[in-house]
């Protein structure tokens, strides 16, 4: 009787352990071998930008490198004067959703869960002083009507797919995709993929715009998990920066942008590349300019960090 009891308990224990082991191996696998990519990963936390890639492209006023713009976009961008952002009423407008990867800051991501089911409702990327943050709804809700309000952040839904977080943004407000004034229309949509490999989070952005982009703007930016929490929540408080109330909106008339050749001259870059023509994004273009491009001379004064010798000049 006692032996029967022992046998039954041992068998039960082994059975539970075996089933648990089978379940664990199905979900996780031998993590030390790296053979399994989790279907979902922990995305909540603070993520510092790596800073080893040049994705901002805003060191000079006319820098549209790496973009495939329409002629209309180019005309609008060249009319943009960054002094617009000094106007009291525009200082706190902030930048649109794309600025999550095009801006200089890190990401602080938190999870919002349903209090009853504990299911994830949304991931929230906290705002910065000049960015409005983003909520990625994970509960399967539909995107609103096309007539619904468009905002700087837009409306974003997400799902886990192939080991990555895939998200889709609509309802963005007309604004900019670069701080250099490259416009983005309210018909634009953005697809995101968040990949995590170890402590590195790579955010891939694919922005489409039937009005201003000939081909999608693709940016992938790396972030590393931070041990210390990031906090960028300083409020934007407008202050006097020069333009008086009632002043005209700073802008440049057609063909009057004084910075149009600045990047071209500083770095000996082809004008069509600086101005965001589609062909400049493909390897054929590199072969096309092979015999005409001359590298700029080495920097000898005021070079700044790592030989970056861009110096701003007045108009």
């Amino acid at each position, binding site marked *: 009787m006692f032996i029967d009891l022992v046998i039954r308990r041992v068998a039960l224990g082994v059975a539970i352990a*075996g089933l648990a082991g089978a379940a664990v191996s199905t979900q996780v696998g031998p993590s030390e071998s790296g*053979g399994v*990519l989790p279907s979902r990963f922990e995305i909540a936390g603070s993520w510092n930008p790596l800073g*080893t890639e040049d994705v901002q492209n805003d060191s000079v006023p006319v820098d549209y490198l790496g973009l495939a713009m329409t002629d209309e976009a180019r005309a609008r961008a060249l009319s943009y004067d960054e002094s617009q952002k000094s106007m009291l009423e525009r200082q706190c407008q902030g930048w649109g959703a794309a600025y999550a990867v095009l801006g200089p800051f890190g990401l602080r991501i938190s999870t919002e869960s349903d209090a009853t089911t504990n299911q994830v409702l949304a991931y929230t990327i906290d705002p910065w002083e000049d960015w409005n943050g983003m909520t990625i709804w994970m509960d399967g809700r539909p995107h609103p009507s096309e007539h619904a309000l468009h905002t700087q952040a837009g409306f974003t839904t997400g799902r886990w797919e192939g*080991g990555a977080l895939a998200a889709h943004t609509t309802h963005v407000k007309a604004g900019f995709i670069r701080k250099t004034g490259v416009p983005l229309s309210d018909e634009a949509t953005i697809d995101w*993929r968040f990949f995590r490999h170890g402590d590195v989070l790579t955010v891939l952005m694919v922005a489409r715009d039937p009005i201003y982009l000939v081909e999608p703007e*693709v*940016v992938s930016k790396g972030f590393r998990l931070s041990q210390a929490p990031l906090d960028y929540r300083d409020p934007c408080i407008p202050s006097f920066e020069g333009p008086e109330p009632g002043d005209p909106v700073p802008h440049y008339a057609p063909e009057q942008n004084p910075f149009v050749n600045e990047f071209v001259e500083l770095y000996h870059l082809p004008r069509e590349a600086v101005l965001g023509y589609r062909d400049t994004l493909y390897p054929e273009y590199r072969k096309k300019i092979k015999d005409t491009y001359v590298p700029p001379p080495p*920097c000898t004064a005021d070079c700044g960090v790592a030989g970056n010798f861009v110096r701003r000049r007045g108009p």
Partner: protein
Amino acid sequence: MKRLLVAVAAVVLIVAAGLKARPTVVGPGAPASPREADKPRPTSLQAQRQGSASAASARDAAPVDLTGYWVSYVTENWRYRMVTPAKGEYRRIPASPAALPIIAAWDPAADERAGEQCKSYGAGAIMSVPGRLHITWQDANTLRIDIDAGRQTRLVRFTASAPLSGAPPTWQGESTGRWERVPAPDTGGSLSVVTTHLRAGYLRKNGVPYSERATVSEHFDVAPLPDRGQLLLVNTTVEDPVYLNGPYIVSPHFKKESDGSKWDPTPCSSTW
């Protein structure tokens, strides 16, 4: 006694179930039968759907299909990739003090004369060089990446190869691959590649160096593009105890092309 037998049988069944549920792991050391390589193969995704629990080849076990032609889509780091930056500029690369004299002494003509014109086409930089990739399976456990820029070839082996005895390092080094699969019922995954045994090269065309002690770790991920397009994202980490203060991480991306009609092999050049 009968109960004891029943209990033992239950244990055997449960252990067997556990083994069957374990996901297939393909990586260094995963057995590969030479005979299997000769058989007609289903596509990797077909093999995946069949859910074989046996030790599949890397080709059969691929959770994503990376094969085909891919073209660089240079929307980032344009100024460092499409043209040669000014001598001395190493912005965004965590160059160590030991690297600075080499950066300052960069002489592309001297490299060319010394037969070192492929220094910026090594595994530490090649995925950022604008060009096209042609990815194929050389055999069941070796992924082959041909690159038309500089006429380079990378071989990613999924089986542990014997250590080289005195073989000189090469531009593309020795690459070991491993699939990282998303467990069922989801599908998809990522290719992880680690490359060592590199010949010293440049991270950028203008002579920012990496040494023979560098290690290149990569993740190949695929994402959809509009109109059924595909984007290949290659997350690349270069670590070098000699010429880098920290990891240098970039993520060049490629668009899938329907065929090889634009494939255009060009030789290495240190001046362009």
